[in-house]
C-alpha cells in the first residue's frame, strides 16, 4: 500500500479529482494548505502600504491506494495539475503499513 500526497494549485482540484476517478480511485482527502517553494509569495497593497505574502494557498490531496495503481495515479495527477508555470506543486509517494475500514473491519488493500 502506498500514500500519494499531491500539493497542487487550488483551481486544478476538480481536474485532478476527475482524472483520479477516471482510473478507478474513488476516495481521497483534501486539505487547504499554505506554503511556498520556488514560486515565492506575492505583494498586496492596502492604502499604499505594500505587504509581501510569503505563504500561498495550495490544495493538498491525500489518497492511499494499492501499489498496482501508483504509477497510473501519479501520471494522472502530473497530467491534470500541470500548467507549465512555476508553482504547479509536488507529488510525494510513501509506504503505508496497514489500513482498516472501520464499518466492516476489512483490512489491507480491501480497506482502501
Amino acid at each position, binding site marked *: 500500500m502506498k500514500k500519494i500526497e499531491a500539493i497542487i494549485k487550488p483551481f486544478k482540484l476538480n481536474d485532478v479529482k476527475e482524472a483520479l476517478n477516471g482510473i478507478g480511485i474513488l476516495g481521497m482527502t483534501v486539505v487547504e494548505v499554505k506554503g511556498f517553494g520556488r514560486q515565492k509569495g506575492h505583494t498586496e*497593497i*492596502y*492604502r*499604499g*502600504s505594500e*505587504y*509581501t*505574502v510569503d505563504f500561498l494557498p495550495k490544495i493538498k490531496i491525500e489518497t492511499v491506494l494499492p501499489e498496482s495503481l501508483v504509477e497510473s495515479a501519479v501520471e494522472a495527477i502530473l497530467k491534470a495539475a500541470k500548467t507549465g508555470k512555476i508553482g504547479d506543486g509536488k507529488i510525494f509517494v510513501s509506504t503505508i503499513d496497514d489500513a482498516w475500514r472501520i464499518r466492516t473491519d476489512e483490512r489491507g488493500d480491501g480497506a482502501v
Partner: protein
Amino acid sequence: MTQAACFYRRFLSVCLLSVLAFGFGHAAFAAGNAPDPEPAAQLLPGPTVTGGLPINSGDNAWVLASAALVLMMTAPGLILFYGGLVRSKNVLSTMMHSLILMAVVSTMWMVFGYSMAFSEGNAIFGNPFKHLFLQGIGAAPDPDYAATIPNQTFMLFQMMFAIITPALISGAVAERIRFKAYLVFIVLWMTVVYLPLCHMMWGKGGLFNWALGGRIPALDFAGGTVVHISSGVSALVCALVLGKREGYPQEPMMPHNVVYSLIGAGLLWVGWFGFNGGSALTAGGLATSAFAATHFAAAAAALSWTTTEWWLKGKPSVLGAASGMVAGLATITPASGFVSIPSAFCIGLVAGVVCYLAVTKLKARFGYDDSLDVFGVHGVGSSTGMLLLGFFASQKVNLALVATFKANGVTTAIAGGAHQFFNQLQAVLVTVALAAIATWVLLKGVDRLIGLRVDQEDESVGLDLSQHGERAYNE
C-alpha cells in the same frame, strides 16, 4: 483586588449616581417652578409659535433627520469602516471604541457638555452650569443659533458631532490601547479639547465665530476644525505617544475584511449629507448647496485618489477608492456651505492627491503607526479644506456672509481672498496647537495613572479577548 479597594470603588459609584439623580431632580424641579407655555403650542398643526418665534416644520424635519444621519455615520458607518481595517482579533474592540462613545458622550453632553459648548461664556468656553442637565433647552428656538427649529433639535444635532469626533481618534489607538485608559482619555479630551473648540468656532462669543462676535472671524461650516482637524491631530499625537503596534511594520497587518470597510464608507458618504447639509440648520437653498458640494467633492476625491494610486502603484485598489471618498468628505466639510459646485469639485480633486500622499509617503517617511490613517485622511484633508475655503468662499453661495459678518460693529463683506486665508490659517493653527498639546499632556497623565497600553501578551492575543472576553468570529 482587596476588599477595601472594592468597597471604595462601590462607594464612588454610588456617589456618582446620587449626583446624577440629584441633577435630574433639580432640573425637573426647575421646570416645575416655571411652567412652560410650550406644550399647548406644540399640539397645533403646522408652523407653531413658541416664545414669539415660529417653528418651521420643514426645517425641523430636516435637521432631525440630519441628526439621525450623523449618528448613523458613527454606528454603523465608522464602526464598519474601522472594524474592517483591523485584524480579526481586534475587530470587536475597535467597534466598541466607537460604540461606547454613543453612551459616554451623550451622557457628558446631557450633564454639562452642551452647556459648556453653546451657552454664553468667554471666548474659549461656555458656562458649563447654565444648562446643566439640559435645563432650559426646550421647544423654543435660540435665534442666535437656529431661529426656526426648537433649541432641543439644535442640541441633538450638535450632540451627534460630539459623538463622532472622539470616535474618529480611535483609529489611531486601535489594536493596542487599554479599554479603561481609552475611556478616561476620551472623557478628559472631550472636556479639554472638543467642548472649548466647539465653543470657539460655533458658540456665542467664541474666538473664531464669524457670525456671533468672534474676534478672528473664521469660516468653518460643518466642523473642519472642531471635528476633523482636532481628531486628526490628536490621533497623530496618540500614535506617537502610544508607539507602534507590536511587530509594525515588519509583520503584515492587513485589513481583515475590506468588505466591511466599503459598506462603512458608503454609509459615511450618505450620512455626510446630514453632517454638512444639516449644518445649514434650515431646509432651504443653503442645505441643498451644501449637499451638492459634499457630493461632488467626494466624487472628485475618489477619482483623484484612485488615479494617483493607479499611476504610482500600478493597480486601482477598491480600498483606495473608498479612502479617497472619505478624504474628499472630510476635506469639503468646513467649506461645504460656502463654495460653489465647481469649487467643491476642485477641492475634492486636491483632497484625493494630498491625502493619498499623506497616508503613504508622509507616514512612511516619519514611521509613526497611525493605524487607520486618521491624521492622513481627516487631519490633513480638513486642514487643506479650511485653507482652500479662504480662497473659494463665495457670497453668491452663502448670503449670510454678507449679511452677518460684523467687524467693530460695522457690517462688512467677506469672501475669498488673502485676508480670509490668514484668518482661516489662525483657526487651523489654534486647533492644531490645542489638540496636540492637550492630547499629549492627557495621554502622559493617563499613562502614569492607569497605563495606556495592554501588555505584550494581551496584544498578541488580541484586544477582543483580552479586554472584552469575546471573539468576533466563532465557527
